[in-house]
Every structure is written in structure tokens, then in C-alpha cells.
């Protein structure tokens, strides 16, 4: 893995220029500049309230009324790039009265199986096969989506987002509600997907110790991008303290301690 600062010749997956957004009188994004070359696995970190999720929402067109520019794969119009994006939300707020099964949920992503309602299991599974084997969700197919554990649900959401073979995968706090061993497995899975599919992946996380092991490049956000760089560099940067406040200093002492939590 070679790590270097983004240069101009590399095609950019994400290019954000002077993004500003004020919500209810609070300036959440105060001029964010961000360039992510295609094919990287990057992490966007920052404390709670730093604007990570808001930035992601701007990129996905879920948040409007911002100033500045968001370009994905060189295009400012989101309509045309949306099919190239896979998105994994933080969590689902699903009622248990709604018994959508995992198989049915995954079929919703495949436009041609609009008729999943009448189809047999076998023909659905054939269409889903590739994605299922990769993520290991075959055993979950007949379970209702609302009954899955946090870790199981995250894997199903990943499988869902990969079904259309996206070029960019955006994950919002993907391990919220997942236990620690599950979290490790999850990040290993993301790393594997990234390597195998050669897609751009952006992880949003407040947990530096986890992303440290997996990301090629880290962006620290707190209203603006305070600092960015490869994990080794950024962990020691003075400016990280700016992003995280004063609580973070213990990180410097255990770079390989992915089982340590910051609190």
C-alpha cells in the first residue's frame, strides 16, 4: 500500500470545496475542503457534533441549502452519480410489526426483481448470490430484518449497498450498536471488500482506534478539516487535539491498540 498526498493527476472520487452549512443558527460546517482520490479507503473522524454525518448527508443530497460545491466522480449533479454510490446508514429504526425478511429487503435493491412478490426463493437467491457469499449473510436470508442484531444488520446493509456494484461506499458510524469483537470483524470485512473490489470507501467514525488499522488516509473534521494524512502521521499531529479536544492524548501511546477505547 503506498501512501501519498493526493495530487492533481489522480482521478478524484470526492471533491468538496468550501462547504458551509448553518442549521438552526449553529454553523456546523465552516468551509470544508476535501479531496479523496478514487480507490482509497479513507476515514472521516471527529468528535460528536463535529458535522461528520451532516457532511455525509450533503454528499448524498439529503441535506440541501449549503453553500460550496460537492463533486462526486467529477460531477456536481447528484442524480447521475447516485447509482454509483452505496450508503450504509447508522441504524434502522424499524418496527417489529413490519416483517420484511432479509431476502425481501435485498431484492428491493434489484430493480428487475420488482416482482419479488411472486418469485420463488431460488430465483431470488440466484440474483443475490455474489453479494451474499462475499458478506456471509446467507444464513440470515429468512430472518425478519427487524429481528437482527446490530452486527448482523450491518452486514445485511453492506450486502444491500454492494448489490448494484457501487464505485463509492459511504458508511456512517457503521459499528454503532455492534460489540467489540463484532466491530473488528466488520472492519476486516470492509478492508477485504475494498481490496477485492477496488472501490473508494469512506468510513465515518468517532472511534479513532478502529479506523487507524484500516484506513489509508484520515480526515479529522471539526467544522473544518483540521488535519489530514496517513494514520501514523495524523495520530501524532498537534492539530488532532484541535479536532478532538483534549481528551484524546492517550492515543499516542498505543498505536496498535485497536482494542482500546477512548473515553
Amino acid at each position, binding site marked *: 500500500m503506498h501512501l501519498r498526498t493526493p495530487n492533481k493527476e489522480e482521478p478524484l472520487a470526492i471533491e468538496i470545496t468550501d462547504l458551509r452549512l448553518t442549521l438552526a443558527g449553529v454553523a456546523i460546517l465552516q468551509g470544508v475542503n476535501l479531496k479523496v482520490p478514487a480507490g482509497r479507503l479513507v476515514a472521516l473522524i471527529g468528535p460528536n457534533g463535529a458535522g461528520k454525518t451532516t457532511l455525509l*448527508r450533503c454528499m*448524498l*443530497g*439529503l441535506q440541501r441549502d449549503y453553500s460550496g460545491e460537492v463533486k462526486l466522480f467529477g460531477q456536481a449533479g447528484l442524480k447521475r452519480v*447516485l*447509482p454509483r*454510490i452505496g*450508503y450504509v*446508514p447508522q441504524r*434502522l*429504526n*424499524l*418496527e417489529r*410489526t*413490519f*416483517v*420484511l*425478511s432479509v*431476502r*425481501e*429487503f435485498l431484492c*428491493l*435493491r434489484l*430493480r428487475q426483481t*420488482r416482482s*419479488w*412478490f411472486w418469485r420463488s426463493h431460488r430465483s431470488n437467491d440466484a440474483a443475490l448470490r455474489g453479494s451474499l457469499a462475499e458478506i456471509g449473510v446467507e444464513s440470515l436470508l*429468512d*430472518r*425478519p*430484518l427487524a429481528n437482527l442484531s446490530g452486527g448482523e444488520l450491518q452486514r445485511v*446493509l453492506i450486502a*444491500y449497498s454492494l448489490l448494484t456494484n457501487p464505485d463509492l461506499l459511504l458508511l456512517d458510524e457503521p459499528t454503532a450498536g455492534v460489540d467489540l469483537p463484532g466491530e473488528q470483524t466488520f472492519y476486516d470485512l470492509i478492508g477485504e471488500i475494498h481490496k477485492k473490489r477496488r472501490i473508494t470507501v469512506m468510513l465515518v467514525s468517532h472511534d479513532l482506534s478502529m479506523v487507524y488499522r484500516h484506513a489509508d488516509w484520515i480526515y479529522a473534521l471539526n467544522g473544518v478539516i483540521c488535519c489530514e494524512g496517513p494514520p501514523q502521521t495524523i495520530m501524532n499531529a498537534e492539530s488532532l487535539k484541535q479536532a478532538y479536544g483534549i481528551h484524546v492524548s492517550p492515543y499516542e501511546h498505543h498505536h496498535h491498540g485497536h482494542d482500546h477505547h477512548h473515553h
Partner: protein
Amino acid sequence: MFSEPFMQRALIAALCLGPLCAFLGVFVTARRMAFFSDTISHGALAGVAIGLWLGFPDPTIALIGVSLLVAGAIFWLKEKTDLLTDTIMALLLSGSVALGIIILSLLKRRPGDIHNYLFGDIFAIRWWEVGLIPALVLVVGVGLFLMLNRVSLITVHEDLAHVSGVPVRFMNFLFIVVLTLTVAVTIRLLGIILVTALIVVPPAAARNLSRNLRQQIVLSFVFGLLGALGGTGLSYQLNLPCGPAIVMTCIVLFIISLLPRTALRPRPV
């Protein structure tokens, strides 16, 4: 019972509206909109009163109009204020009931008239409605079925639906309009107070017996059909108000659906 024209009309209405309410109900319950449907139906009381006040021979049009107004008011207040949706709906529900009762008491209607709107009336369905109801059911039912993917995805997660290319705002708007129209039309059969039961009980009974969404939709459809037809029949045979008869039939189906629950439940691994 099938030879009476009023009964033929009521049965046609029940045949159409039972399954439709039950089908819509699968998504209404999953999206926590049961109270929303209740608010809309109670708003209809003001509609009925205004219709009678204005001297309409049949207040159905006023009823539908006011129901749509109440639905619009819920969303307008949600956008303009910081109030919880629950609070807004409770306010509009009690407000429109109060307005309806005041107008009706000023009009000095016999209590019997109001009674029929509150609890449903098998004599209420007119021939022009028998034309309207199947048309509504066909358009809404087929439309909802064709958009099943999109509606299901919005129910799972609105942002995920947006990223998957679903026009979320438009679909939500459409869903509200369709739900409002369905509730307003079904009021004739079930009455203002009980109409929500036909939207909530069949999907709940179906949920008890289902392992996936397809099963829930099919079973809910069947329960809606049985409940509406059975209840209308009972209403005629036993001379009961139509709404309570349908609701009790649905409740009996719900109780039956609870029975095999322990047997069908996936065993803990």
C-alpha cells in the same frame, strides 16, 4: 340478505374496502401512522357537519374535503412549529370533533344521524359510491402494488430509499393522499370512531402468522376481506351497527391468529 339492494351495495363496498384498508394498513402500522389515520377520520366529523350545514344532500364530498384539509394541516403545523406530531394530531382530532358537534347541535339534527356517521351504517352506501369505491380500490391497490418496492424501502429507511433513487418526498405525499381518501370513503361503512381498526387489526393479525412481508400482505388482505364481509353480514343478520360488527369480526380473527403463534415461532438458537 343478498336480494336487498342496500345490502348488495354494502357488500360490494365491504368487498373492496376491507382488503384495501388491510393492505395499506401493513405500511400504516409499520410507519407508526395509526394515530394519523385516526386523526383524519375524526376530522371527517367536522366535514359531515359542514356538509349538512351547507345543505349538501350527501355530505361525502365535504367529508373527503375536510379530511384532506386535516391531513394538510398536520403537515403544515409540523413544518411551521416545533411541536411533536403526536401533539399536533391530538389537537386537530379533538378540535375537529368539537367543531363538528357544535355545528351539528346548532343544526338541531336528531342524534340518530350522528350515530350513523360515528359507528357506520350499511344503509349509507349509495349507488354512485358503489361506482366510486371499486374505481378507488383499483387505482390505489394496483398503484400501491406496483410501487411496493419503493414504499417498502421508505418504510425501512427514508435516507436509504433516497440514495437508492426513490423520490421519498413525492412518495410520502402520495401515500398520505391515498390513505386520507381511503379512510374518508371507508367511514361510511365503519364509522368515524372505528375506521382505524380495519387499517390496524388485519395487519396485526397477519403479523402473528407471518415470517416475511409477502405473507403479511397476503394474510392481511385475506383478514381484511373476511372481517369486512363477515361483519357486514352480521350487521344485517343481527341488526347491529355495521362498524362495530366489522371490528369485532376482525378482533376474533386476531385472537385466532394468536393461537398458533407459539408453534410457529422460530425456536431460540
